[in-house]
């Protein structure tokens, strides 16, 4: 269906005028809850243009739908009108819909082969919930249903008061296409893609999202197969043909459903080597051993640097031996996480400190209490 159709990469698939490199990731969070529009984050990610090749760009923005914050913002891409009516039939049957309409875009020559892009502000119909099923669990089930069973339709964003905007193109073009200068967010996360193992298509651009969780990723997850099979046991079905999808679902499973701390999450995704575990003090050693034993199938093998975000947190993490770059910076209440140092300085004159996190050790920016920001799922 999708892949190979209008969703696919543009015809000029290889751009030879390009140095081969890696993806770019960038995140910024105002821990005081102050909001900015999409211009700084676009400027920052565009500064790392060498790291992407025009086959994927995307953004996650938190705090952008304050008037409809009680509703899940379902953002979907459709192959055609038939796919839209099939999906809308399901949405009307399953949700109370507060508002629906096309996502505003601007026509620019750099972004082509565009799917239909719609958003729906929804609340689960109480009659649809299974016994003891929470609204979040219901949402995950509904997203999986659409992605797996409704031909030509994909959910690319399903959180509250947040949205993912992504597609095939350089990130700065995708940002202009989605008119991100018109949105005000306290957390912005961005990605420029350089796909190496799978095709560049609209659904495969980053961020990957489920509920409030968004993940952007530079690297490759060589354990994708075992991670995907493990997640399928918990109802997550990978349909987007990009390894990063497993990280988004693993984060939802571990943080929201299993209630792990961020440190424990890091211990699962980027588990320390056994020889390091052997040298930990007793209590920590037992904990690390237990996490590796229980969640061995969610160890992310291979090089990665990622930014995980939800409504109250922004987390940076690399693989345990740091095979991909990540640098953090702080300026007052602003926290930055980036593939490279320069873009942080480019958009922030007053950067007080920048540092390189150690492999496997998470960098966590947390929303200050009293900012009126509701905790995101699992937080």
């Amino acid at each position: 269906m999708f892949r190979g159709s209008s969703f696919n990469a543009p015809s000029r698939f290889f751009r030879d005028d390009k140095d081969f490199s890696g993806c770019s990731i960038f995140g910024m969070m105002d821990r005081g809850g102050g909001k900015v529009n999409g211009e700084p984050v676009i400027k920052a990610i565009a500064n790392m243009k060498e790291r992407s090749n025009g086959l994927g760009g995307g953004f996650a923005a938190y705090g952008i739908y304050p008037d409809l914050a009680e509703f899940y913002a379902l953002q979907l891409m459709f192959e055609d009108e038939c796919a839209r009516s099939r999906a809308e039939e399901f949405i009307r049957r399953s949700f109370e819909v507060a508002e629906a309409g096309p996502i505003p875009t601007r026509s620019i020559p750099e972004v082509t082969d565009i799917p239909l892009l719609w958003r729906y502000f929804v609340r689960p119909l109480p009659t649809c919930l299974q016994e003891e099923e929470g609204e979040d669990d219901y949402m995950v089930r509904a997203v999986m249903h659409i992605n797996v069973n409704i031909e030509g339709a994909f959910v690319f964003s399903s959180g509250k008061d947040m949205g993912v905007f992504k597609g095939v193109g350089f990130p700065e073009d995708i940002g202009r296409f989605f008119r991100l200068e018109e949105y005000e967010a306290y957390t912005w996360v961005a990605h420029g893609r350089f796909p190496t193992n799978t095709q560049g298509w609209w659904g495969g651009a980053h961020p990957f999202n489920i509920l409030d969780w968004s993940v952007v990723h530079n690297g490759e997850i060589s354990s994708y197969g075992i991670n995907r099979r493990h997640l399928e046991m918990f109802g997550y079905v990978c349909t987007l043909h990009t390894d990063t999808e497993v990280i988004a679902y693993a984060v939802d499973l571990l943080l929201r459903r299993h209630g792990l701390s961020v440190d424990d999450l890091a211990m699962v995704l980027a588990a320390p080597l056994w020889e390091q575990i052997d040298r930990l003090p007793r209590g920590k050693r037992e904990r690390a051993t237990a996490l590796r034993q229980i969640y061995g199938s969610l160890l992310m093998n291979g090089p990665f640097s990622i930014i995980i975000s939800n409504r109250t947190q922004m987390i940076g993490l690399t693989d345990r031996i740091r095979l991909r770059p990540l640098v953090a910076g702080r300026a007052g209440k602003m926290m930055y996480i980036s593939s490279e140092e320069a873009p942080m300085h480019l958009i922030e004159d007053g950067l007080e400190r920048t540092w390189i996190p150690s492999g496997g050790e998470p960098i966590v920016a947390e929303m200050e209490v009293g900012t009126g920001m509701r905790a995101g799922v699992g937080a």
Partner: protein
Amino acid sequence: MKIDLERMGDPRVFRRDNGHVHIDASELHYRELNAMIKQAALDGATLMEIENVYGQRYIGSGVRLPVRIEIRGIPGNDLGAFMDGPEIVVDRNAQDGVGNTMNSGNIVVHGRAGDIVAMGMRGGSIFIRGSVGYRAAIHMKEYMKHRPVLVIGESCQDFLGEYMAGGVVVVLGLDRDPGQGLRARHVGTGMHGGAIYLRGDIDPHNLGKGVEVSEPEEADLEKLRELVGRFCAYFGGDPAEIMAGGFVKLAPRSKRPYGSLYAY
């Protein structure tokens, strides 16, 4: 991308003053910037001041003349890659791959640098005032009189000197008490040539297999005094005080640490 050398005619971007060249790198793509640098070096410039550098890669790459390049800002990855002769001075932090396969010349960074500093470096010297990230001096090498040098003022992260084949690395640890050891792990993994000098100690668990720790001998101390002297000349500080901190030397036990790993 088209390289717009016309911009060299624009005095706001490119200004010449008695063998001194000023470049405003705002909005310049690295290919334009590096074309300007190479052209100015060929035209006989002795000093280049480059302002508003934000992430432009490969600055100084392939330049084979002894010019001095002063960078104000944050140069991008692979600063001075394959460089052969120039001196580069950076007033703030540098990114990944400083001095990648550099052949000769000198790089002085007044801030911190990222990962893989001095990767595959073949000659010349690099001085970093602050810390460096992962895998500094990975596969640094030496050949006859070409003996590269990397001096790090503060600390390094894991895999310092991974697969190191030659050259000299010094980690001064000025961000901690001399009694407090270097925290980096897997130091010298696969090292089979060259020498690493650490001011302060290191936990043997953090060393790669096949690395031997010893007291520096007089010839080592002489080299260290020279390098510490240069470090203090660039960044300030008291060489005698730094030397008093006490060093250990890391060197490979064997030139073929994995010789018997796959062949029995």
